[in-house]
C-alpha cells in the first residue's frame, strides 16, 4: 500500500531529522553566555510551540474547508491536527516550565507567552473534548469546525490582551527564556530542529489522518448495515 510506504518514509525522515537536530543542538551550538547549558532546551521548546501554531493553523484552514465543502477528508485532517497540536503545545509548556525553573527560579510564571500558550491549550483541549462528546460524526465535525475557526481567530486577540496585561505588572525588562542575542550557530540549531519537528508533525499527521479516515469508513459501514 502506497499509504503505508509514504508513512514509513515520513517516519524515517522525521527520525533522521530529529537525530540531526539533537546533534546540532548539543554538539554544534555553543552554550549560552548567561544561562549555560540549560538554554539548549530552547531547541526543544521553540520548535514545539511554532509547529503547534502550524498545527492549529491547519485546523483553521481545514475547518473552513469542511464547512464549505463537507468532505470527510478535511475533517479528518482538522481533528488529527488538533490532537497533535494539543500534544505539542502541552509538551512545549512542560519544556518551557522545566526551562524556567533554573533560569527564573519558579516552575511557572504568568509570562505573556507561557500564558497565551496555556490558553491556547485550553481552547483546543476543549475542541477534543467536544468531539468526544458528540456521538453523530458529522454533527461533531461541524461543531468542532466552528470551534476550530473561532479558536484560531482568537489567538492574536488573546496574545495582544495578555501582553498588555503583563506590561501592567512588569516593567519592560522582562526576563525572557531566550538569549538576548541569538548567535549564528544557535540559529542554525534552531532552524534545524524546527525542520525536524515539522517533519515529525507531518509524519504524525499522516498516520493520524489514516486512523480518522478508517473511523469515517467504519461509521459509513455501520450506517449501511443499519439500513
Amino acid at each position, binding site marked *: 500500500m502506497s499509504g503505508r510506504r509514504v508513512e514509513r518514509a515520513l517516519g524515517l525522515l522525521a527520525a533522521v531529522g530529529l537525530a540531526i537536530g539533537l546533534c546540532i543542538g548539543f554538539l554544534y551550538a555553543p552554550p549560552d553566555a548567561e544561562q549555560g*547549558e540549560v538554554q539548549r532546551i530552547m531547541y526543544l521548546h521553540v520548535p514545539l510551540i511554532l509547529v503547534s501554531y502550524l498545527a492549529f493553523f491547519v485546523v483553521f484552514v481545514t475547518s473552513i474547508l469542511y464547512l464549505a465543502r463537507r468532505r470527510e477528508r478535511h475533517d479528518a485532517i482538522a481533528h488529527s491536527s488538533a490532537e497533535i497540536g494539543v500534544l505539542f503545545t502541552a509538551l512545549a509548556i512542560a519544556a518551557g516550565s522545566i526551562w524556567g525553573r533554573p533560569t527564573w527560579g519558579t516552575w511557572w510564571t504568568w509570562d505573556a507567552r507561557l500564558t497565551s500558550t496555556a490558553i491556547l491549550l485550553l481552547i483546543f483541549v476543549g475542541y477534543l473534548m467536544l468531539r468526544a462528546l458528540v456521538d453523530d460524526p458529522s454533527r461533531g465535525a461541524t461543531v468542532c469546525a466552528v470551534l476550530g475557526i473561532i479558536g484560531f481567530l482568537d489567538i492574536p486577540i488573546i496574545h495582544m490582551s495578555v501582553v498588555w496585561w503583563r506590561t501592567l505588572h512588569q516593567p519592560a525588562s522582562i526576563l525572557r527564556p531566550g538569549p538576548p542575542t541569538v548567535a549564528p550557530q544557535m540559529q542554525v540549531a534552531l532552524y534545524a530542529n524546527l525542520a525536524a519537528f515539522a517533519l515529525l508533525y507531518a509524519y504524525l499527521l499522516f498516520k493520524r489522518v489514516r486512523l480518522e479516515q478508517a473511523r469515517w469508513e467504519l461509521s459509513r459501514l455501520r450506517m449501511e448495515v443499519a439500513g
Partner: protein
Amino acid sequence: MNPWSFLLGAYLLAAVGLLLYLVSVSRRTRAMAEQVAALKRRMKETAR
C-alpha cells in the same frame, strides 16, 4: 543546580510523550482496522 538534569528531564519528557502518542495512534489504528474487517466479514455473510 545541575543543568544537565533539567535538560535531560525536558528532552526525556518530550520523547516519552511523543512515543506514547505514537503507540496510542498505532493501537487505535489496529483496533479500527479489526473492527472494519469484522464488519465487512459480517456484511458478506448476511449477503449470502
